[in-house]
């Protein structure tokens, strides 16, 4: 408080002033993101081929919650509750999962370029999901695709982790090259599944491969909800240790972090979150890269804000992205994955250039 009242010319003791200032910014960012998310959710619920005014959306939601309001006519009620809202909820869940997974993965690898899409985790999870679709597996009912995506995703994270590390560190080049190899292999497997699939399955697979939320239903929401919520709930508890891991593995251990256990826990969480997102929405890239980066620029690299903040930011980005995908080329619909890829790739390119400049080359 005193720091704010002082004339800006006098340098304040930075050691103690910094957390206060940062605390204020954290609050502002959190409130801003929450407000943006709420606004986007309401807009998404109303905007579309069948317009529902904002007042009606609020009234219907109030009505269902037993807080007054009123029901809409049958078409509007059906559009809102069976088409729009599951899609909004799914966008929020998938976005939060991807954003959070990105932040965790960058922390675990100690590398700002790690992201489920870039290093092939999404593609790996997709292999499981496509396999389940192509082979017509239904052994776990609604959850079959999610579980297959999780198992394949987990196997991929472990593989990438084992392949890209040496001497307790992950070099950027090794990580990206490993990602290329994993993506290529996963792509080939998906191609193989498509080759053996029938026409109906191929349509389903291709559509889903481009990344889309168009097939959102409540059962789908339910199918990913446990995975996503579990992952999102567990992740913030590791924030403090992730901060310490930034010092490197040994120094983190010197500060009392059980590095092995932390790593295993977080890899499981990343696989869980990625699988949840991929199973329902297909491969949506760059959300997990873009969101943590922007937040790190805005509020520093501390994981206590970054991990939950990236979940929130991811939800905002995907809710906005899905709204744009539905409305930009109406009545046609852009695939969401294509949209995020279009916007995310240039950002990734810029990030690569910046990292390279900082390191003074890859060598």
């Amino acid at each position, binding site marked *: 408080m005193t720091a704010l009242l002082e004339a800006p010319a006098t340098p304040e*003791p930075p050691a103690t*002033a910094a*957390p206060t200032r940062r605390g204020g910014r954290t609050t502002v960012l959190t409130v801003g993101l929450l407000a943006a998310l709420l606004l986007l959710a309401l807009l998404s619920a109303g905007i579309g081929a069948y317009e529902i005014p904002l007042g009606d959306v609020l009234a219907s939601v109030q009505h269902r919650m037993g807080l007054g309001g009123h029901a809409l006519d049958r078409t509007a009620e059906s559009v809102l509750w069976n088409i729009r809202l599951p899609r909004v909820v799914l966008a929020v869940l998938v976005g939060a999962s991807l954003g959070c997974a990105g932040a965790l993965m960058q922390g675990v690898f100690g590398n700002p370029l790690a992201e489920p899409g870039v290093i092939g985790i999404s593609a790996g999870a997709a292999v499981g999901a496509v396999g389940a679709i192509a082979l017509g597996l239904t052994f776990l009912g609604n959850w079959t695709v999610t579980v297959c995506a999780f198992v394949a995703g987990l196997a991929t994270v472990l593989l990438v982790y084992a392949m890209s590390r040496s001497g307790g560190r992950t070099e950027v080049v090794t990580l990206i090259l490993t990602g290329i190899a994993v993506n290529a292999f996963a792509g080939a497997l998906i191609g193989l599944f498509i080759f053996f699939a029938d026409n109906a399955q191929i349509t389903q697979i291709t559509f889903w491969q481009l990344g889309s939320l168009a097939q959102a239903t409540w059962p789908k929401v339910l199918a990913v909800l446990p995975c996503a919520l579990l992952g999102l709930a567990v992740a913030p508890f590791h924030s*403090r240790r992730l901060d310490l891991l930034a*010092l490197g593995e040994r120094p983190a251990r010197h500060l009392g972090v059980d590095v092995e256990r932390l790593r295993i826990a977080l890899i499981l969480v990343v696989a869980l979150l990625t699988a949840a997102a991929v199973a329902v929405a297909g491969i949506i890239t760059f959300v997990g890269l873009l969101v943590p980066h922007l937040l790190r620029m805005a509020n520093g690299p501390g994981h206590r804000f970054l991990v939950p903040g990236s979940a929130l930011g991811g939800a905002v980005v995907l809710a906005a992205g899905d709204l744009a995908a539905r409305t930009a080329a109406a009545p046609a619909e852009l695939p969401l994955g294509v949209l995020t890829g279009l916007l995310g790739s240039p950002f990734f390119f810029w990030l690569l250039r910046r990292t390279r400049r900082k390191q003074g080359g890859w060598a």
Partner: protein
Amino acid sequence: MTSTGPVASTAPETSTAPVASTAPATSVAPVTSVASTTSVASMAFVRLRALLPRRRTRALPSPAARGELVAEARGLRVALGGRAVLDGVGIGVRAGEVLALVGPNGAGKSTLLAALAADLAPSAGEVRIGGRPAGDWAAGELALRRAVLPQAAALSFPFPVAEVVRMGRAPWAGTGREDEDEAAVALAMAATEVEAFAGRPFSALSGGERARVALARVLAQRTGLLLLDEPTAALDLRHQELVLRVCRERAAAGDAVVVVLHDLGLAAAHADRVAVLHGGRIAADGPPSEVLDAEVLSRVYRQPVEVFPHPRTGVPLVVPIRATPSLKPDNSPSLTRS
């Protein structure tokens, strides 16, 4: 720098929270001017957190008496990549002394330090820390007993300097000594002269500045055993002296300090004891005046040296014997020929 060591080490003797929180409060009075802007809110948060159930109750370390063995290696053998890097090393580290590890490149200094830090599992022999085999401690318990400065300071993300130093306090979270956090961070930053760039990101610092920030983090951890791997390597003359003075102060306050050094002059001037490593064994171990012997050093470093006392202080000076053409004019033709 006021010696906070004794206070820090006596406070937790009774591990009941109220005592631990009142004892340091009186001692940090000179520091509060630095930390005066600590907001009321964060104080309230600390209070609130103290009410929450502790996740795990770890036994806080009791301070070692001066001269007590804090860590030791016995018959230590460490093999890395099939090669024995250390073989039959026995050494004890005592509270209240600065022990310098010196020796040529590849002699095993860093490996010995890593073994004493419980980073490496010995293939034979044993390492004890605080009287217990190193492998028996949990990571969280060890972190209350020893702090380690790695040779190269790295950081994956651009944390501000103040936050990096604060990371050193992580092991004490949830213990009675959590109350020392602010004072420990402020004192460590003052001791290493890094306050001027407390707000800058670590990645924007020069090599020497990074090394000092890393040292500040280690000092803030306030453990009874300090293991420093070449803390002076990247530093200028002033800060080399400063770092070893800090080591001396910590030892005077009752801590045990092990420091890997390349500069034999620094070792001679500041260490209580010097251990010379050579080919994975200890070639000599004792007070600098005995160990820094021209014959031993010439053999170990494969470089003829002469050792003579400083004319004023009497501290041994180690100087390589150099061919000095400028002093021997009759040698000059060989340099200028052709």
